[in-house]
């Protein structure tokens, strides 16, 4: 069965000033898969993520999400795409002045016309999914780093997105919380056929969840394929990455 492409970049070039950060990246990501974007620090992983989501304007090349070229879309059209996606930022990016409950309620209140009791139930279920039952009415400043990240994930999942982007979800989390998060990611993928795009360095996590690897090195795409293929790719940088991290 042919897999459905949900994100596609073609010859994507991104620059900071004169410095080329992404150099002709062409990748495809598929529905219902966990795609992990890998590479050494500063290789352009987060830049790729932000270019896909139009947070940065690509210098040249094309980005398609759900088969639509995002550079052709006006703000309203692109917002419709954003409503079908969720993003978990590196530090959570929760709104600090309001409670965790209110943070999760923002997308539901703004983008749906669901009644209050259903919204309330959805919010509490999402927070339960990320083990934050006890922190519903706390403000972000009262949460630890890991809790903030989990609350932000609940917010990202509020609108039942088809694609969720994660920017280093395991950074700063203990191995148990990180494994729980991976379990949740697998559940979301299996039960909801959700597509997940994850920037991470954590090899343990990559082994647990990755279906597809996108390996960047100094702004260039070195490898794209499945995890077993990556390990036998014969590309020194890719093999070294998995070798050094294995134990």
């Amino acid at each position, binding site marked *: 069965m042919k897999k459905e492409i949900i994100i596609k970049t073609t010859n994507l070039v991104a620059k900071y000033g004169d410095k080329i950060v992404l150099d002709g990246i062409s990748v495809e990501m598929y529905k219902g898969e966990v795609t992990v974007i890998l590479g050494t620090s500063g290789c352009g992983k987060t830049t790729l993520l932000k270019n896909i989501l139009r947070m940065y304007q690509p210098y040249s090349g094309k980005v398609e999400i759900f088969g639509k070229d995002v550079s052709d879309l006006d703000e309203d059209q692109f917002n419709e795409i954003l409503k079908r996606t969720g993003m978990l930022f590196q530090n959570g990016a929760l709104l*600090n*002045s309001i409670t965790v409950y209110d943070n999760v309620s923002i997308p539901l209140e703004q983008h*749906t*016309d*669901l*009644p209050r*009791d*259903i919204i309330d*139930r*959805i919010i*509490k*279920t*999402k927070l*339960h*999914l990320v083990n934050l*039952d*006890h922190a*519903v*009415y706390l*403000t972000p*400043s009262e949460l630890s780093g890991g809790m903030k990240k989990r609350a932000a994930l609940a917010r990202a*999942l509020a*609108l*039942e997105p088809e694609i969720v982007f994660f920017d280093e979800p395991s950074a700063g989390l203990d191995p148990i919380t990180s494994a729980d998060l991976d379990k949740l990611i697998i*559940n979301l993928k299996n*039960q*909801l056929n959700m597509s997940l795009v994850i920037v991470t360095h954590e090899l343990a996590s990559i082994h647990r969840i990755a279906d597809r690897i996108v390996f960047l090195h100094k702004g260039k795409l070195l490898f794209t394929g499945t995890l077993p293929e990556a390990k036998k790719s014969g590309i020194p940088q890719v093999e070294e990455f998995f070798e050094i991290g294995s134990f």
Partner: protein
Amino acid sequence: MNKISLKDQTLYISGKIVIVTISDLLKEWERNYLKETVAKIDIKEVEAIDGAGVSFIETLIDKYSLTANDLQNGTESIMRSIEIFSSAKIQTTEKPKADNIFVKTGEAFFSFLNQFIDGLYLASDTIWWSITGLLNKKGRRKGSVIEQAIVIGLDAMPIVALLSFVIGFILTLQSGMQLQKFGANVYIADLLSISIVREMGPLITAIIIAGRSGSAIASEIATMKVTEEIDALKMMALNPVKYVIVPKFHAITLTMPLLVAFSILISMGAGLIISVGFLDVALEVFVSRSINILAVKDVLITLAKTICFSWLIVIIGAYYGMKVTGGAEGVGKATTSSVVTSIFAVILADAAFSLIYL
């Protein structure tokens, strides 16, 4: 097709029960089946369900006072989704109740009292280390006083000059026009000299410095606090008050009187231009009258006032910076509170000076 139907007290739901469809399903259900008696919910025909869909099903279960066992015929995949996204295992947390007015008032009072006491502690610490720091320069960075004097004093000169000129200009024009009606133009020099030297000069400069440098002090220290720089200093066996606040204290004590003198000169200059140009006051008369009207006491009071204002600004800024909590948002709050409090304190201190030394 997503739809709901009722047969033999069983509610049949079919189609996709997902976030984009449940709003319509809810409307259909409320319109036709809300008041019906339902004993079972059949989800055999449900093709897909997500977290919002599960919430919808659970809402129906609650509304009909059913249990999860009354949900029947779901496929394995659907039942698994319901299990994952179920709210049954949620440990309910009560929303904290808002305190009543008495609790709030009491809390506000004690919080103010504690803040005041903490502020006094910081002030005493700062003054102590500032005095000892005059003799012993250990525990702070070389050149930090000069650096701070440039930031707090020198960099503020253009804005102080501009505002002082405008204020001097307005004050002369408004008062001069009134005096002219009585042919008392010449007294403009006396009036300006007293009001600018004793009141406007120190007050305007202090307000500008509170807004500009006070906020910078608060935000700098608050940022240092939230990024653990203050803790890092303590871990290096350095006193943060001595290292961070004392150089600012020395710098502002040194530069504020100079800035006030500069502000007075500019305001008087603006007054002189208007008086000589528009009010027919002779240059030498303006200069001699404005100097003669001043007593040494006036200048000393202005100096005392200025130093008092500068200490208030630096201590309030440092206090709000030091007590910041809650990351970036806290820095913003600390800065705002510092500016509001220091302007309030400066005006209050000015009123006290005016009452004591009339």
